């Protein structure tokens, strides 16, 4: 095994995100983050910022319109509002991750699950995505103004021909994974909390395993880069940022 392959295979970091938990980390350019849906049925809300200048952040409309998509899977990339690639989706066993239906807040949680206060449940209390995001963003001096449309990994909400939306049940099986590669130095913020369209009425977000690995940024023949001319230009603009 070459040094490069060893670097690809050994996680620098492996941890488990229990239901309700939040997480953040700056992925250096080239590092990879794999999310694994351990039991099936996970739902992880995610936000992305340029760690070197967090006013540059994930932009849902620019991501969708540059690639003519309304979902995320391998071969697509996450664009910032500055025409650069924050992360590439380098591997995905699920085929569809949502980015058009946002995330839940305290009111959604109380309507779906009832009162799950800390006083009553201690550290099993019912956390919600918005509060988790605000706490985690606050650690970087970011806040409400920086909360934009997020990605929901392992979630599918499909639209019919009239635009009507429906939650797709049992979308992500046990062992499913998605892997991202950072193309900027990227602040990733995750919240493992229920999606507001999940019809479940018991608070039981599933565990998700996280693995961070070293690696290099996209090569000239990278599939995400080659998938369409828009992405070739997006990667060129990203590289120009570092020259």
């Amino acid at each position, binding site marked *: 095994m070459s040094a490069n392959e060893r670097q690809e295979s050994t996680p620098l970091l492996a941890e488990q995100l229990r239901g309700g938990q939040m997480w953040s980390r700056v992925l250096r350019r080239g590092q990879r983050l794999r999310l694994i849906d351990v039991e099936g049925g996970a739902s992880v809300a995610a936000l992305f910022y340029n760690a070197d200048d967090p*006013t540059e952040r994930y*932009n*849902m*409309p*620019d991501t*969708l*319109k*540059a690639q*003519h*998509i*309304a*979902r995320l899977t391998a071969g697509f990339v996450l*664009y910032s*509002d*500055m*025409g*650069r690639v924050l992360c590439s989706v380098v591997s995905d066993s699920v085929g*569809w991750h949502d980015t*058009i*239906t*946002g*995330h839940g*807040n305290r*009111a959604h949680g109380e309507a779906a699950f009832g009162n799950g206060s800390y006083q009553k449940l201690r550290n099993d209390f019912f956390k919600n995505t918005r509060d988790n995001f605000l706490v985690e963003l606050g650690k970087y001096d970011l*806040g*409400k*103004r*920086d*909360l*934009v*449309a*997020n990605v929901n990994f392992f979630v599918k*909400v*499909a*639209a*019919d*021909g*009239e*635009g*009507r*939306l429906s939650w797709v049940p049992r979308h992500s099986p046990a062992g499913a994974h998605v892997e991202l590669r950072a193309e900027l130095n990227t602040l990733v913020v995750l919240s493992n909390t229920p999606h*507001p*369209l999940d019809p479940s009425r018991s608070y039981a977000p599933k565990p998700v395993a996280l693995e961070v690995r070293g690696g290099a940024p996209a090569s000239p023949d990278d599939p995400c880069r080659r998938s369409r001319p*828009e992405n070739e*230009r*997006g990667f*060129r*603009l990203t590289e120009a940022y570092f020259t």
Partner: protein
Amino acid sequence: MTLSESPLDPTRAIFDQVLDSGLGWTHVLSPGQILRIVDLEGNQAVDTLFYNAEDETERYSAVDTVREQGNLYLSAGTRLLSTEGRVLCTIVADTCGRHDTLGGACAAESNQVRYAVEKRFMHSCRDTFLLTIATQTRHLSKRDLAANVNFFMNVPVTPEGKLTFEDGLSAPGRYVELRAEMPVRVLISNCPQLNNPCNGYDPTPIRLLIWNEV
């Protein structure tokens, strides 16, 4: 697709102004006031953002709006929700039938990705938004420019998850009306995009009218 006409009389409007393409506009509506946006020549995209005028950290949320109404497209009856889950405005009349909120605003940078690196010089909605908030508002900045509404723009999504920009459904004289449900700052860029059919490759003026509570 439901079309809904308005009984309001333009001669009784308290504000009536034409906004050329490539220009921005911002105005605070009082609760109950009604804003009409008229697509004067047809197929014009009107990129629009909304803020709680008393606390501009609360703003329009495209994803909350589509999720809570269970539909991707905006039309008569749509309640435009804020990041706090409250109603900023309601669409009370609509003679176009479908408006987009996934396509966002064009920007110099996204034009480079979408069309050609050399397109950076072309005028864009984000440039208009940035100039308008810099000159006419006190606290807004790029951080506050989140996913917007594109009135009169047609961006169909397929069940397979594809998204396309189509020729608009709009036509000369079609309009949409919004009733403010709280003090609302409206921020408009009359889109100057020349690279796709959202404006029929020919950006044109819109007309803006406001009525007091009716």
